[in-house]
Every structure is written in C-alpha cells, then in structure tokens.
C-alpha cells in the first residue's frame, strides 16, 4: 500500500465547482482515513484527504472530501467494508490539504529531508535511516525505534504503522528520500 503518493494527484482548482457539491467523511482516527482513502481511490472516486471541520477536530486528524452526489454508494461501500464514517457533512469550501513541501539538507554523505515538522536523515551510500527528528505525537518515538538502522526499503512504512499526522509528514520525508536517492 502506498496511499500517500496518491495524494499528489491534483484536482481542478475551480472553487465554484465545490459549492455544496462536496461532502466530508469524518472518522474517529487518522488511520481509518488512510484505509478509506486507498479504498475509494481504487474504486475511482475523486477524493481528497483534508483537515476536518472545526466541530470534529481533536487536534490530530484527517477526513475525506468526496463528491456529495456519490454519498449513497460511498457510504454503502464503507459500511460493507466495516469502515463506517462517524458522520457525513456537506461542505461549502475546500478543506486544507496536508502540507507536501519538503526541504533537503546535505551533510556530506548524509541527506536530511524535512516535511512540515518531521525530519528523516539517511546515509546516501547505504540507504540506511540514521536519524529521525521533530514531531510531537507519541508514535514518533515509536516509529524511530522501528525504523532507525534499517534500509529505506526494509523499514516499516510510517503510513501503515503510524497513527498520526506526524507519521503522515514523516512518510512525506521518506517518499522524497526514495525519490531522490532510491531505496
């Protein structure tokens, strides 16, 4: 599964199109959103992973923006797959997508990539992850324990074993590292 890559697909920036034509699927955990995003994209729906509306925010969460015209079929599909949303709400403006900008710093044979608040550093010669820094959610120290000392291709995917937006950003760093130096 490589769900983060799918987020790079851009939709037309036509604000007029989204007026009460799109809705949000709200879930209890970001991890559920990850699975839902993969399922709905595989089914061909045009969706975006975005920040939920204020009433649903816990401080670390994601929701799925979708075409409201597809509500019935999408909710039925999710119910069938055991991923029922907590709520479905119509929206009149686009939600905020997670940050995808990255910054790269070279330290001799080491390369560090930062996405939002998360930094991952890799030995370019061996492709081994040597450090993980930043973040504030509790899965960051856990992910560091699981990923440090492993080659990029062998380390667990933060999108699969992480639970938070920090894990999301860490995966953005990882994907950029793989794009630049391979795995």
């Amino acid at each position: 599964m490589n769900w983060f890559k799918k987020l790079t697909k851009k939709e037309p920036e036509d604000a007029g199109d989204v007026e009460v034509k799109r809705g949000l699927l709200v879930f209890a955990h970001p991890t559920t959103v990850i699975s839902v995003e993969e399922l709905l994209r595989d089914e061909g729906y045009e969706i975006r992973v975005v920040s939920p509306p204020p009433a649903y925010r816990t401080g670390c969460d994601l929701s799925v923006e979708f075409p409201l015209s597809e509500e019935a079929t999408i909710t039925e599909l999710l119910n069938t797959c055991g991923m029922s949303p907590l709520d479905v709400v119509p929206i009149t403006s686009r939600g905020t997508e997670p940050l995808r900008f990255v910054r790269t710093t070279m330290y001799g044979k080491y390369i560090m990539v930062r996405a939002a608040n998360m930094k991952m550093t890799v030995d370019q010669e061996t492709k081994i992850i040597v450090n993980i820094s930043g973040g504030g959610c509790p899965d960051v120290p856990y992910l560091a324990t699981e990923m440090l000392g492993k080659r990029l291709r062998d380390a667990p995917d933060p999108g699969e074993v992480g639970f938070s937006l920090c894990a999301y950003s860490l995966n953005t760093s990882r994907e950029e590292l793989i794009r630049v130096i391979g795995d």
Partner: protein
Amino acid sequence: MLLLAGAVPVEHLPLLIGPIEVSPTGITIDGNKLPINRGNEAMMSAACLICKEYGIEAPVGMVAGDIGKREGSIAIYKHLAEHLPEMGVKVLTLHYVMPDLKLNKKVLATIDTMAEEDKPLMIADAGSMYVAKAGGDAHYYQVFTPDLGETAFLADDKADHPSFTRGFIFNMEEDVPELIRRAYAGKNATPTMFVKGKVDYICQDGEIVDTIDQPSVETMEPIGGTGDLITGMISALIYAGETPLQACRIAGRVNRAAGELAQPTPATQIDQILRFLPEALAKVQKQLG
C-alpha cells in the same frame, strides 16, 4: 514539585508517576526502566541532570505507554484533569502526547479552579504545544519551545497541526523574526519562547531579546531529541529558580556546548549528546559568570 508529563513508546504501559532516576542508559520511574529515546525520555533525562547539578530534588515523571493509539495520552490528560490541584506542582512540563483538544481543555479547566498562587508555571513542547495552540490556549503557558517547522505552525493562525501549515508560511522560514511576529500577533506564542534552529531565538513578550548561534554544530539538527534536551533543561532551570528568560539563555548555550563536546555526525543518537550535559553546563556557567 517539577512534574514532567508525556507518553512513551511502550504499548500498554500503565500510567506511572514517581521521581525520575537517571542512569547512562535510561530513566526509571516507579520501578520501570525506560531506555533513552528521543521525546519524553530525553527531556526527562536532561531535566534530571540539571536538577542534580543544581542540587535540587529530582523531577517527578508522569508517563504512560502510547504508540499513537491514544490510550496513554488519554490516561495522562485524565489524571491531570482529576488530580492536578492536589499534587503540589510548581512547574509543569507537558511534552509528547496525542493532541486532544477536549481533554486538554479539561486539564486547563481544572487549572482554572486553582488559586492563582497554586497554579503551576506551564511549559509545553511537541504534541502538548500543538494542542495548546490549536485550542487557542497559549495564554495558559509560560514557555513554548518550537523548532522552525513548529514556529511556522504557530505563525499560521489557520493551522491546527504542523502538517496543515499553509505553504506560503512554511516557505517563510528564511525570515524567522516574521514567523515569530506572526505567532505573537495571533496570540499563539507564550510570554517566553525559545525558537530552536540554526540560530536559536529567545523571545520575551513579543520581542526577540537574545539569539544564540555559537558554537555552530550543524550536525545537531538531524539528531532526534536535541530539542527535547532544551525543553528538559529549561524546565529544571526554572524549577531551580532561574527566570524563564535566563533558563532559555542557559539551556540554549548548554545544548550547543554539549553538541560541540560530542562532535556528532548526523547518525549520532541523543544519548551521546546527553552524557556531556554536566560538563557543558559547567562550561556555560563559567562563561556567563
């Protein structure tokens, strides 16, 4: 009491509260040994070492296991909301927890019930800082210790997590004073704030009052936990009687001095920096007179 609270990456570890004992390989709280790691363990170790050097009582740790599934974080929030007034906490540092707006507001509501003289001085970093900012509650805290990415988050009044910082603000990072100005203008900064970066900025009431750029150890940035050491040191220094501003001035310099002593590479781990803190503190105290 100096209380340091946060989650640790040990699944199903129950809530533990007790004085923190530090050793070269880890910390012990209530008989449970936790290896040095980035995050709370590094922060707590640094605070312990500073308390020891100042000859004051060891900080008390409040930890619970959480690998991102929230249960440990919830236990910490709930305990604080229910028991903080009776704990006699003078300085409270909140660190790695899963941001939870409702539960954090319950903790703050408990603090509101306390007499002014009993309220703890509060320091926040990591997830605790995220939830404080997202809830519009920065005014409860005395010190935030953001890094550059987190400062951009504080500067963005629309973002409720660093991952949602808007691109034009993320790309403003070459202008740190502007980020700091925005954070204060949006009331998302604390009276004293330590901005960690290539140059450290120390702020007081909206003004940058000190910067630290020497010694410059560029390889410190990739090392997970260096910022946590600063937060732990600031906590202990305030508890030892330093003003928040002076605590930031000392901690920033000690961190860099420890880095210089350790001669790190980007692959160095935090325990290799941590061991130099006592020597670095002595060096900085001598410099500052």
